């Protein structure tokens, strides 16, 4: 163990990135577009939860809702089948979607910041489910039950980027890599350390002169950006958004990904997302497509019961066991 921990971790990150870049050239298109891309954009949303929970101690169940707010904002500023909203050029639409989602995230942060732990989880869950019932009921802005269909996707060389498996995959990978690296960097900066101080002991952090509320709200704002971009990519991928995307099932999906992967490190979000998307696609052959929720629910339950630090925790324990055997 001569190399410092940080160097080793960066080495892991680079190996991971190499694999993610090579992956689409090794597998058929189905695996690129239907497994790879969704793992990355769901991973982005799960990453925002993983960041808040792992470094801020705030398990926010409203992250799928932040993605959904961005998704609805994007759909309403893009050409869509319902001809609702105001179509804008796509860069403006994306900017608008991210802005609205970050503002929403700040609102969530303000409501949640004065509370802690379990109360925060409850409030964010209530906010998330309230949004679902709102979009499901409201037909003047959100087109109620049907949501917004046929959302236009930006084009590259006159083809929608979503139709070209590799193009869309690498766009998702680019965004995911930037925010993964960004969070890895952020948590080592003074601002990131202040957040971890607030997580470990809010009263001491306050006594040291940090504004606990401001730090928490800032963390929510920062987490809002990857969640929002995940939502944007999700809408481009599906070319639609509906209440079903942000219902309790969607909220739980993000939580399951982040927790099953492991909250201790940002990479857990992507590991969990890959597993979730794989199971979603292949549940049919394991338990029948209708019983996917039973399968994923049981896996989630098993993980929180027996390995609360997720698959990352299992890997760490295996590694430790192997090392101690080698030493013996």
């Amino acid at each position, binding site marked *: 163990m001569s190399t410092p921990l940080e160097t080793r971790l960066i080495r892991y990150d680079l190996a991971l990135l190499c694999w993610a870049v090579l992956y689409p050239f090794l597998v058929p298109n189905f695996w690129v577009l239907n497994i790879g891309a969704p793992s990355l954009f769901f991973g982005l949303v799960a990453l925002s939860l993983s960041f808040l929970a792992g470094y801020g101690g705030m*398990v926010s169940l409203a992250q799928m809702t932040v993605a959904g707010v961005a998704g609805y904002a994007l759909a309403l500023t893009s050409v869509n089948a319902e001809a609702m909203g105001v179509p804008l050029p796509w860069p403006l639409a994306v900017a608008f979607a991210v802005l609205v989602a970050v503002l929403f995230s700040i609102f969530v942060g303000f*409501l949640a910041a*004065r*509370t802690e*732990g*379990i*109360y925060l*989880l*409850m*409030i964010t*869950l*209530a*906010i998330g*489910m*309230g949004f*679902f*019932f*709102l979009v499901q*009921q*409201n*037909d*003047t802005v959100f087109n*109620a039950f049907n949501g917004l269909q046929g959302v236009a996707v930006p084009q590259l060389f006159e083809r929608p980027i979503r139709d070209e498996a590799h193009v869309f995959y690498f766009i998702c990978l680019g965004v995911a890599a930037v925010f993964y690296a960004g969070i890895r960097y952020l948590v080592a900066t003074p601002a990131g350390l202040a957040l971890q101080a607030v997580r470990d002991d809010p009263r001491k952090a306050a006594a040291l002169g940090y504004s606990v509320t401001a730090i928490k709200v800032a963390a929510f704002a920062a987490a809002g950006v990857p969640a929002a971009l995940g939502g944007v990519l999700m809408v481009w991928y599906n070319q639609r958004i509906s209440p079903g995307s942000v*219902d*309790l099932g969607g909220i*739980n999906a993000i*939580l*399951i990904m982040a*927790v099953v992967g492991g909250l201790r490190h940002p990479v857990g979000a992507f590991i969990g997302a890959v597993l979730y998307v794989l199971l979603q696609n292949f549940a049919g052959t394991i338990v029948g497509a*209708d*019983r996917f*929720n*039973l399968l*994923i*629910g*049981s896996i*989630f*339950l098993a993980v*929180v*019961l027996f390995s*609360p630090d997720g698959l990352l925790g299992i890997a760490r324990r295996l590694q430790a066991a192997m090392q101690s055997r080698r030493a013996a």
Partner: protein
Amino acid sequence: MNLFLTVTLNGLTVAALYFLVAVGFTLIFGLMRSVNLAHGSLYLLGGYLGYQVGEWSGNWYLALLAGALIVAVLGMAMHLFFLDWMQGEDLRQALVSIGLSVVIADLLLAKFGSLTLQFQPPEFLQDSIELPLIGGYPLLRLSLLLVALGIGIVLWLGLNRTRFGAAIRAGVDDREMLSALGINTSRLFVLVFAVGAGLAGLSGVLGGTVLSVSPGEDARYLLSSLVVTIVGGMGSIVGAAVGAVLVGLVEQWGMAYLPTYAYMLIYVLMTAVLAWRPAGLFGRKA
């Protein structure tokens, strides 16, 4: 005026249902510091089990009893097998209960399908009653209001006038101190969990009778329980009652006068309360 009164009365009857579901949730939360996010699933479980028993026996009262008792036992089992041994790890308990709710919802969907089911209540409850200013109003909904009021009073008396209640209140304030005083807190927790789960099961049958039972209702009652507890403050029966009335009224008024933005008003309510009293109207700082 007439419409307003009817909507208000509707709000109160919905509030009665929300109160019955949320009071168990808030007591469990207050006493054990553990959020049972499968509470909505217990409601749905009660509804379906009651429906099944009602189908078999043709007796609505039996359905009511079965819904309450079976869910109370299942709630106890859930507590003992899944939550009890991770006492103090409140976040993990919340996650476990979310896992359980996903599994329960899918099992219920597999067994009962996605159709909306309705109960057949006894004849006399299907009548409507003449009220001054409002006119005819379903007796069923009024009796729901009375049942909730009765249960609320019994719970309040039990909590404030008995030794057992004193122990629970002491537990809400400081559970370590309570167990140091020689009270078996584990047994207390199981009992409170049973009562809370049983009330959720009972509400499932009542709600299924007044409204209906269908998949997705678990989410609705989980949301109402969350908001009632956030607004009313945890561990307080009076808080749950006031919270339920506020949520019920805001929801029904919203649906009547601002149909597409009714759920927005719930945000307004929550934001207002949290800004003014972060621990809820009747909550104390944990």
